[in-house]
C-alpha cells in the first residue's frame, strides 16, 4: 500500500466543465502528483486550499478520479463553502492534500464488472477503467441529472461498454431504478460496484442483497479528519457497530453496512 502523507502541492490546472444550477459548477482540479501512482480506485483524498485560512477547519473529501505520472485529477461539483473556494483557485496556487485514504474497489481481472455511477459518483470509475487489467469485462451505467457534457463521460464511454440515463424529473426515477436492476441482473455472476447519492446506493444495495449479487458501494459522509480519528463519519456495520466510513470504507461490501 502507498504511504499516506500530507503534502502541499501546486495546482496545475482547473478546468471548468460548465455551470449547471446556480451556484453549481463542475470542474476538474489537476494537481501535481504527490506520489500516488499506486493508489487504488475508490480511494479518496482530503483537500484543503491554503486560502481557507481557519474559517473552514476541515478539509474536504474527494474521490481520486485519475492519476498519471505527473498529476492527480479530481472531478468536483461546487455545492458549498469549501468547493466554491476551491473553484476560486488558480494554477500554481497551493493546496494541502492527504491521501490516498480508505479502501478502494475490488479489482477482479477477467470478471464481468458493472460500474454503477450516479452523478458525481462517476469520479472514481475514471481511474478504475484506466487501471483495470481487463477493461473489456467492464460495463458502465451512468445515471445523471445535469447534461452529459458536464461529466468526463465520453472519455470513459470510449474505453468500455457504457450507457447513460438522465433523470429529467422525478418521474423518470422508476425507469432508472428498473434499468439499474436489469443491468445488475445481467451481470449477476460478476461484480457490481456503485458510487453515487444515497438513494441510488440503497437501490443497488437492496437489489444486490435480494439477488445475492456480489457488490460494493462507496459511501459519502461529512468528514472532519478523513483518517478514522474523529468518529464523525460513522455508519452501522453488519454487527450494528459504528464504523468510520473514512477508514473502514468508503467502499464497503453491500452486506457489511447499513445506509
Amino acid at each position: 500500500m502507498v504511504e499516506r502523507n500530507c503534502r502541499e502541492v501546486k495546482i496545475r490546472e482547473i478546468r471548468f466543465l460548465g455551470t449547471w444550477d446556480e451556484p453549481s459548477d463542475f470542474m476538474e482540479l489537476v494537481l501535481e502528483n504527490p506520489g500516488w501512482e499506486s493508489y487504488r480506485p475508490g480511494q479518496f483524498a482530503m483537500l484543503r486550499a491554503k486560502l481557507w485560512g481557519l474559517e473552514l477547519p476541515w478539509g474536504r473529501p474527494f474521490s481520486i478520479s485519475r492519476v498519471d505520472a505527473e498529476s492527480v485529477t479530481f472531478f468536483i461539483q461546487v455545492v458549498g463553502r469549501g468547493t466554491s473556494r476551491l473553484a476560486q483557485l488558480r494554477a500554481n496556487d497551493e493546496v494541502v492534500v492527504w491521501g490516498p485514504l480508505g479502501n478502494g474497489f475490488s479489482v477482479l481481472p477477467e470478471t464481468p464488472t458493472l460500474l454503477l455511477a450516479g452523478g458525481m459518483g462517476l469520479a472514481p470509475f475514471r481511474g478504475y477503467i484506466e487501471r483495470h487489467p481487463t477493461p473489456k469485462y467492464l460495463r458502465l451505467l451512468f445515471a445523471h441529472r445535469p447534461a452529459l457534457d458536464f461529466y468526463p463521460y465520453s472519455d470513459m464511454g470510449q474505453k468500455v461498454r457504457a450507457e447513460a440515463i438522465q433523470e429529467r424529473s422525478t418521474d423518470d426515477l422508476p425507469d432508472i431504478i428498473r434499468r439499474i436492476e436489469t443491468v445488475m441482473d445481467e451481470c449477476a455472476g460478476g461484480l457490481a460496484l456503485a458510487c453515487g447519492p444515497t438513494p441510488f446506493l440503497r437501490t443497488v444495495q437492496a437489489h444486490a442483497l435480494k439477488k445475492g449479487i456480489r457488490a460494493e458501494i462507496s459511501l459519502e459522509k461529512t468528514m472532519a479528519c478523513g483518517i478514522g480519528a474523529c468518529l464523525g463519519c460513522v455508519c452501522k456495520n453488519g454487527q450494528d457497530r459504528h464504523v468510520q466510513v473514512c477508514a473502514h470504507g468508503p467502499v464497503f461490501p453491500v452486506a457489511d453496512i447499513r445506509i
Partner: protein
Amino acid sequence: MDLRVEFAGLVLKNPIITASGTFGFGLEFSSFGDLKRLGGIVVKGLSLKPREGNPMPRVSETPCGMLNAIGIQNPGVEVFLRDKLPLLPWRETAIIANMYASSVPEFGELADVLAGEEGLAALEVNVSCPNVSHGGAAFGQDPAQIRKVTEEVKKRAKGKPVIVKLSPNVTDIATCALAAQEGGADAVSLINTLLGMAVDIRTRMPCLANVVGGLSGPAIKPVALRCVHQVCRKVSIPVIGVGGIVSAEDALEFILLGAQAVQVGTANFLRPDQSFRIIDDLPRAMLKARSSSLDELRGGIKLP
C-alpha cells in the same frame, strides 16, 4: 532549544499534547508524523464498557470551529489496553488515558483498571462532556461533584497523576478548578467544548442528531484563554491549556498566562500533521516572544 516541561510528575519532551477525541488512539496519525515527537497523547475518552456513541450526524462545521456530539464512542477500556496501548510509543511519549463514566463509583472502577498500567503516564478525568445526557456535563457544572469524582479517582490512581478536565459551561470556572484541587487533582486541563448548536434551514433540523454539541476550534480560543487566566490565578496546581490552539504562537499564549502545557484538538483536522508542525514551529515562535525558555515565558503575562 530545550522545550522539555515537567509538572505533576509528568516529564514531557515538549508542551504539545494532542487532545482527547481529536487524535484517535494516536495510531491513526502515525503515517503523518513520528508519534514519539509529541509531548503527549491523550487518547479518545474511555469507558468501562464499549460505547456506540450518539447517532449520526455527529459533527458540523461552524465559522472557525466545529460542533461534535460523538457521545464517547469507544471500544471500552479493556480493548484499548489490549489492542491499542501496546502499539503506542509509551516509553518515549506520555500516553494519557481520558476517562469517561456516568457516576462516581464508575469513575472509581475505571481508575482501578487504568492505574496499574505501566504504559499510561497519567489519567485525565473528563467531567465535562456535553454530549451525553446524564453524567458528563452535570458533573462538570457542580463543584461538589467535581471534588467527589476527583477524590475517588485520586484514591485509586496508585500514584499516577490525575488531571481533571473542566467545562467552560459554568458561571465560574475558577471555583470548579479549586474543587478539583481540593479533591486532590495533580493538574487541571481546560477547556472542554462550549455547549452549542447548529440548524439547517433547508431541512429544518438541527445539524446534529443529538441537537446540541460541543463547540471547539479557533472560534473558542478567546474563551479558553480567559478561563486559563482565571484558573491560573486561583489554583496552585498545574494547568494545561486547551481550546482553539492551531499554531505555536497560540500555544505560547496559553503558556504566557501560566499554563504548563497545552493540548491541541480541532487543529488536528486542519491537516493531520498539524500537531507535529506546531512542535517544529515552537522555536520560531519563542523567538517572536523573545524568549529562549518556556519557564521564563510561563506566567509572564504583564497585567496592567
